[in-house]
């Protein structure tokens, strides 16, 4: 039954769903996972999420998702095994294992179906302050650049004969200090760059692609509500089981 519902949400579908709706639903599901007490209800919730995850598989990410799922399954089995030993109760261990799945899966799902630009748009629509959104944008843009800079600095250390991975006493003066000077320099230049592009944290800015509510968003929300209701029903019916 859940599979039939899930198949109406193809990966392309999920990617195009309103990002704000996705964020709210993922928060609700994560929160719900903490309160469900019945192992069958939890199982349904976890299963829906796993199926959605599998539907996100594309040729580009099949290896990553595949490896992740294999690692996750092994970890889950280990967890349940250890839990059974510690608690002397298979069902409880299984419940906690599935609960872990239900808590941890919504975010990778969100990340796989929501590019950073969409996330920024969602936060703008949620009326978060523009400087916070700017900070997030800058972090995404410059985190890889700063990582590259630290790589260059590590190489420069090797070039002067210091094998920094084996000599932690050099970490401070050899890596952190030069890196921080680079970061401070970038921060100054980026501030200037933003100003030359007319950015003002206090001024009103328009949105080039405002979020528009569409039919698929309604379908998504209805589907999510149905899942939540089903899980809640199973939980209450089997309370204590």
């Amino acid at each position, binding site marked *: 039954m859940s599979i039939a519902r899930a198949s109406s949400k193809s990966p392309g579908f999920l990617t195009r769903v309103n990002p704000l709706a996705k964020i709210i639903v993922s928060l609700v599901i994560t929160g719900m996972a903490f309160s469900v007490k019945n192992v069958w209800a939890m199982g349904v919730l976890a299963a829906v999420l796993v199926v959605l995850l599998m539907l996100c598989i594309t040729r580009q990410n099949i290896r990553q998702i595949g490896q992740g799922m294999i690692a996750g399954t092994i970890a889950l089995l280990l967890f349940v095994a250890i839990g059974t030993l510690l608690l002397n109760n298979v069902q409880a261990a299984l419940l906690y294992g599935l609960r872990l799945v239900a808590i941890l899966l919504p975010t990778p799902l969100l990340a796989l179906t929501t590019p950073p630009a969409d996330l920024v748009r969602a936060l703008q629509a949620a009326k978060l302050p523009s400087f916070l959104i700017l900070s997030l944008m800058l972090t995404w843009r410059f985190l890889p650049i700063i990582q590259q800079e630290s790589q260059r600095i590590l190489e*420069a250390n090797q070039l002067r004969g210091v094998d920094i991975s084996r000599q932690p006493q050099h970490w401070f003066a050899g890596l952190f200090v030069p890196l921080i000077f680079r970061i401070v320099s970038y921060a100054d230049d980026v501030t200037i760059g933003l100003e*030359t592009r007319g950015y003002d944290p206090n001024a009103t800015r328009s949105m080039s692609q405002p979020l528009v509510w569409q039919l698929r968003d309604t379908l998504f929300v209805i589907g999510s509500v149905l899942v939540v209701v089903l899980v809640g029903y199973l939980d209450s019916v089997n309370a204590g089981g």
Partner: protein
Amino acid sequence: MPSLLTITDLSFTHIGRSQPTINPIHLTLQVGEIVLIAGATGSGKSTLLNCIAGISPIHTGGTLTGNIQYNHESILEWSVQQRSRILGIVLQNVETQLFTDQVTEELAFGLENLNLPPAQIGLLTNAALQEFGLESQRNWAITQLSAGQKQRLILACVLAMNQPLLLLDEPFAYLDRAGAELLLRLLKHRATQGQSILLVEHRLDLVKDVCDRVFQFEAGHLVEGGRALASVSVNRTGVESEEAIKHAPSGSHILQTQNVSWGGYPAFPDLEIGQGETVLLKGDNGCGKTTLLKLLCGLLKPSTGKIKLFGRNTRKQRVVHIAKTAGFVLQNPNHQLFGDSVRQEVLQPGVTTLAAEQMLEQLRLSDRAEQHPQSLSQGQKRRLALGAVLVRQPQLCLLDEITVGQDPQSLSLMLEVLRNFTQQGGTLILTSHDPQVADCLNARVIQIGSRG
């Protein structure tokens, strides 16, 4: 014609300097004019641009005197952001002018700052992509773009905002021939539509045909008219010209490469370099010169072929081991300054105080010995990085892009020190796209990649 921008008596002194970088200058810019400011690195042209843009003194500190007027209204009190309403500003550093992670997002960013309605943003974005030949990169991530594409994107973003005045600092730096021609055509077109353009560029020959007026910065003074930049002035005394005889290789080759290739680059020419030789690897941007240097010092391992340094295959050696006899001066000195004073940078374990002092003296950094290395100018940092490498007395010195970011004085000091190094038997391999350097060092020139 009405004067759009009027600069009167503008003078600027950087913090901590006694002499002004720009001596009082007068300049006007009319509607629809293209004006070129040329000059050597460090001559003051970027400083002038920064003053007009509002970056100096607000962000850099320093003292500014004189007046800058737009339509006869003084803009001295305006912030950079306020000036960006009338000035489209494109700076040299390509990385720090891109803020989003996707091409269309970036184009939209500036237009969103102007609070334009979404429909208009869409139209302007499409027009910009067309104008700058970026249609096929529309959905690309910024990280996928080459330096030249990034530069075109920034120009597209700024030009889409359509301010009456444009300030462009070295906009041709990363553009290939096609990109440069595109930009020149575009600038001419924009000028006929009434935009005024102030261009800073040291490649005079490239742009002088489109410019209405040309100015040259010489030691802080703005002079009308331009000529090809003075060639690298290196002191050549009579004594030195005797020693200008090329050092004959001592017979044994300290470096041999065979059939080396890496990544997407075409196979590199085989090298055989003897002790005491100076070799210049010449080639255009992106041909792989830096990659070759990295292969030689072991930072990268070759995909094919082998490299023998001092008779041993580098593939099996660790970089830290190779670094004992080979030094590498990186293009960006900020990656290899580790001390908390200039003196400490050269006073490394195993180096005598005398040797350190002598090195600082040769590099004209003695009077800054107590300063923090990061407080130096780019040229001084580069010299210091060179000093830190040579003071360890390596047998081989690799140097990446010796001319980049160097004012003529700094460059000649470095060449002086390098000549001493080779005269004492050191082997030098350097890269540069400026062939004049080869003459100063009597280097054998090896072409990397195809010509032109």
